[in-house]
């Protein structure tokens, strides 16, 4: 299945790109998507994740076509 990945703010700057498209097996979790894309970069511990624009845990499974986002702590307001 295909998953669309987005990175924001300092994390995007560090990775050097704003997103990825990745093919993974069914029942893949958010954490496994990161590990597939960035095997040599540990996910920074304060990173937040979202699936389809809702906050998600790293253990959440994703589905075909989902949009997964990784970003640092938010600093609005």
């Amino acid at each position: 299945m295909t998953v669309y990945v987005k990175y924001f703010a300092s994390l995007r700057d560090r990775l050097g790109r704003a997103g990825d498209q990745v093919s993974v097996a069914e029942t893949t979790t958010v954490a496994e998507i990161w590990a597939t894309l960035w095997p040599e970069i540990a996910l920074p511990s304060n990173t937040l994740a979202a699936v389809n624009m809702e906050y998600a845990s790293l253990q959440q499974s994703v589905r075909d076509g989902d949009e997964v986002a990784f970003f640092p702590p938010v600093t609005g307001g």
Partner: protein
Amino acid sequence: MKIELRAEPFDPLAELQRHQVERLELKGRYGATAIFIGTMRDYSDRLSIGRMMLEHYPGMTERQLRKLVEIASQQWPLLDALVIHRVGELRPSDPIVLVAVWSAHRAEAFAACRSIMEELKSKAPFWKREDTAAGPRWVERNTPG
């Protein structure tokens, strides 16, 4: 209830005036209006700031803002709420965020306005990058409320 993102500078007091004119049917029903305006300062951690970029996650930001205002509306008997948040390039003294709530009594207006701001600060996907005298830097975390 109205939630908006703005890519250009906005005037919070003029927005409030405009919004109240659109809601004339509420006049006489609300006894309390609590308002918070967040403004860009020209210094941060003792460094002078010349400019700030406010990045957001189009789609998710609006969704999370709407959700947190809805949660506040379920928690307190609000008559109306208005949230406006800037995105894009800001200059010192530019308004960043406006949160306003209208209710019958003051306790719920104060509580809801404050709660919406705290939730926004911790959950709405915005990120600040400041251009300081020592170069650009991402703001790493918000100060506690």
